[in-house]
């Protein structure tokens, strides 16, 4: 897949007020940093950025930074995004400049493939870990790691140590649980218990009434 391009302008105004003004115009304040360069404050177009983000996590992006008449190009990945919880709009982005021959650590999502045997028997699939940290070259960043879980029975668990990676190194402890199939939770049926209690109470009342009746007759 060719690398997506993203246009950026150098940001000169900072702070809450300036950032809010930018957002009102449909722009996003951003910052670009890397291991060998100083941080560069930027302005991105919200729509362009959201389009790029939807291509997937850890996608390498060609960032074109415009500074007046000058232009510079960098290869970056989106390291952090601040989203508005209600509008799902980006309010700030962190771009990490990568060096193509230097390994970086990225968070890669885990995708579970297949329907586990345990789920067919009524169990519930529970995914404990959804992302793992992987160290690899920027060109080898996997979009996601697929894990086959179709063989899992009720009570079975799959760990990080059970998955392998062709290129790169997993930086998470191998004993970390990835997913497990748990037995179904049984909800206590309160209504039935209440009904039973009511029946028991009614029986008691009847017994008392009968006894009282018997005593009355005796008198």
């Amino acid at each position, binding site marked *: 897949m060719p690398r997506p391009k993203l246009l950026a302008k150098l940001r000169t105004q900072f702070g809450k007020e300036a950032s809010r003004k930018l957002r009102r115009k449909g722009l996003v304040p951003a910052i670009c940093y890397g291991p060998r360069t100083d941080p560069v404050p930027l302005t991105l177009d919200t729509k362009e950025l959201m389009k790029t983000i939807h291509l997937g996590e850890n996608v390498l992006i060609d960032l074109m930074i415009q500074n007046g008449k000058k232009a510079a190009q960098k290869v970056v990945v989106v390291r952090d995004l601040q989203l508005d*919880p*209600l509008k*799902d709009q980006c309010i700030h982005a962190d771009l990490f400049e990568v060096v193509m021959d230097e390994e970086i650590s990225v968070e890669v999502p885990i995708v579970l493939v297949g329907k586990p045997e345990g789920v067919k028997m*009524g169990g*519930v*699939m*529970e995914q404990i870990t959804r992302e793992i940290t992987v160290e690899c070259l920027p060109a080898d960043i996997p979009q996601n790691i697929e894990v086959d879980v179709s063989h899992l029975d009720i009570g079975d668990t799959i760990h990080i140590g059970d998955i392998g990676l062709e290129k790169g190194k997993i930086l998470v402890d191998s004993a970390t649980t990835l997913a497990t199939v*748990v037995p*179904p939770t049984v*909800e206590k049926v309160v209504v039935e218990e209440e009904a039973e209690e009511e029946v028991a109470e009614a029986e008691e009342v009847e017994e008392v009434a009968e006894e009282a009746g018997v005593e009355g007759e005796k008198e």
Partner: protein
Amino acid sequence: MLTPKKVKYRKMQKGRMKGRSPRGSSINFGDYALQATQCGWLTTRQIEAARIAITRFVKRTGKVWIRVFADKPVTKKPAETRMGKGKGAPEDWVVVIRPGRILYEMEGVAEDRAKEAFRLASQKLPIATRFISRGKGHEG
């Protein structure tokens, strides 16, 4: 119902609800969630009623997480009491909800069932909510 076991101060001031939820606004455990779009107070009874609505609908399948805990005491004066003579007695526990807060999460059920379960749950709550799913965000 879930209430605090022990608190440092028995009574609290009302406070104001302003802005959006600073935390707890992203799906962290399950695949689907019920998100508040309004601010308000949720009482322990309401939280429990909504939870029961969810678990009754999904029955034995799925796993549900409650992401809110009512830890704010609310006081009330007895009926037909003149004003003054101090603050009333603690009556209930509430949680302050701001827009964006995730209230419940669910996993292990089909999307349509999760949606229906959360619809039933939202009817037990005094604030407007919406259904969201991991990766897709909200609908509409």
